[in-house]
C-alpha cells in the first residue's frame, strides 16, 4: 500500500556497542545485512529496493519500492528492516512507495554475482515495451546458452523456470521486469 505504511520499531539494544555517528551511509551499510526472504542471497540493498534513507536525531525513515505490487514478502521485509535498525536507538519508519517503479535493472552488480553463484540466472535488461522473448538465458551452472524456458511463471512472482540442454540442469531466472 502506498499510504499509511508506517512501522515503528522500538529501539532494542542487542548488546551491540553504541554507534556514535548515525547517518545515511551507516544505515545503508546496516541494510546490507537484511536479506530478501524469497531470494536470501540478495540483500535489500543489492536488490535495489531501498529508495530513500532519512536520518534525524528523533527518527530513521526508510522508503522501499516493492518488486511486485502483490509481493507477499513485503511485510516480512519491513519488519526485518525495522528490527535491524532498532539498534540505533530511535523510532524506525519503513514506508512503501510506488513513486518510482522498481525494475530488475536496479539489482546491483554484486547482487547479480551473488545470484549467479547460487544457481540463479540474473535478470536480462528489462525494457518498457511489450515482452519479447530474447535469446536464451545463460545457464548459471555451466555458462551455456543452449537453454530453454520451461515457464515464464515460477515459484514466486519474480522467478521464471528454465532448463539447460548442455548440462541438463534446471535453473531459475530472476525475471526481467
Amino acid at each position, binding site marked *: *500500500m*502506498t*499510504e*499509511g505504511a508506517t512501522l515503528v520499531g522500538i529501539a532494542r539494544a542487542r548488546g551491540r556497542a553504541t554507534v556514535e555517528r548515525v547517518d545515511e551511509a551507516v544505515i545503508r551499510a546496516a541494510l546490507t545485512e537484511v536479506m530478501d526472504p524469497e531470494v536470501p542471497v540478495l540483500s535489500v540493498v543489492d536488490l535495489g529496493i531501498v529508495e530513500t534513507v532519512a536520518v534525524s536525531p528523533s527518527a530513521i525513515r526508510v*522508503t522501499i519500492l*516493492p518488486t*511486485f*505490487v*502483490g*509481493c*507477499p514478502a513485503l511485510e516480512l521485509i519491513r519488519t526485518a528492516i525495522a528490527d535491524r535498525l532498532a539498534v540505533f536507538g530511535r523510532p524506525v519508519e519503513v*514506508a512503501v*512507495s*510506488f*513513486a518510482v*517503479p*522498481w*525494475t530488475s535493472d536496479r539489482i546491483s552488480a554484486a547482487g547479480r554475482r551473488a545470484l549467479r553463484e547460487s544457481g540463479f540466472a540474473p535478470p536480462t535488461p*528489462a525494457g*518498457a*515495451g*511489450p*515482452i519479447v522473448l530474447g535469446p536464451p538465458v545463460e545457464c548459471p551452472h555451466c555458462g551455456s546458452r543452449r537453454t530453454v524456458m*520451461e*515457464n*515464464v*511463471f*515460477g*515459484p514466486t*512472482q519474480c522467478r521464471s*523456470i528454465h532448463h539447460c540442454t548442455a548440462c541438463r540442469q534446471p535453473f531459475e531466472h530472476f*525475471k526481467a*521486469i
Partner: protein
Amino acid sequence: MTTTQATHALVADRLTRDALAELLLALADDEFVIGFSDSEWTGIAPLLEEDVAMSSLAQDELGHAAALYGLLGELIDRDPDAIAYDREPDAYRHCRLLDHGRGDWAMTIARRYLYDTADAVRLEALVGGSWAPLAELVGKIVREERYHVMHAGAWLERLASVEGEPRDRLLAAWDALGPDAGTVFSPLVGETTLQGAGIVAATSGELEDRWRARIAPTLVRLRLPILPPTARPERGRLEHGEAFRSLWGGFTSVRRSDPGATW
C-alpha cells in the same frame, strides 16, 4: 509517497472524489474477480506449468486489487477488506466479461486474452494521470501486466492454430464472451469529470475503439470472428449472474463464517 491527509487533500472536490471512487472500484473489482477465477485452476490446470502460471497470475491480480482497494479505502475512509468482502454480489462493479464462470481452458484463455488486451489499453490512459497515487501504482502494474498479455496471446495462438477440438472449443468460448468483451469499457459515472481533472486521458468510448483496432490484426491472422458490439454497455458493470454468485460464495465464505476475525 503521500499521507492519508494528502490523499484527501488532493481530491478536495466532492464530484471528482466520487468519480475517482467509481473508477477505483471498477478497476479493483475487475482485478479481484479475474484473480479469483484464475485461482480456481490451481491444482487442476491441463499442464503442471499452467498450474504454476495461473497461480502466479492470480497472485499478481489479487495484489493489484489489494493495492487499488487500499487507495479507495483511504479516499472514502473505509477498511479495504470490508470493501473487498462485505458487499452483496450486486454491489460489485466488475465487468460482465468476467461473469461467465471458469468454464473450460479455452474459455479461460479467451477471457484472459480479451481482458488483458483491454486492460492494457485502459491502464495506458491512467499512467500519466494527475492523481499521483493512482498514476504511480499503475506505472508499476503495467510492467507486470505485460507478462499476462504475452501468456494469453501465446495460448490464444496455440488453440486457434490447431484444427479440431482446440479450435472448436476456442470458437465456442469466443461466441459466448464476444458480446460482453467490450464491457471492460462500460462508461463510468463521472468519467467526464475524471477526464476534466486529468486523471484519465480518454473516454471509455475512445479507449474501446483503440482496443478493437489494436487486436483486429491478430483476430484476422488467427481467423477469429470480429467481436460484435457490446450488448447493453450501460449495464456492463451492473448485472451479475449465477456464475458470479457462486464465485462470491466461495471468496466470502471464510469472512462470513466469522465476521471480523483476524489472524
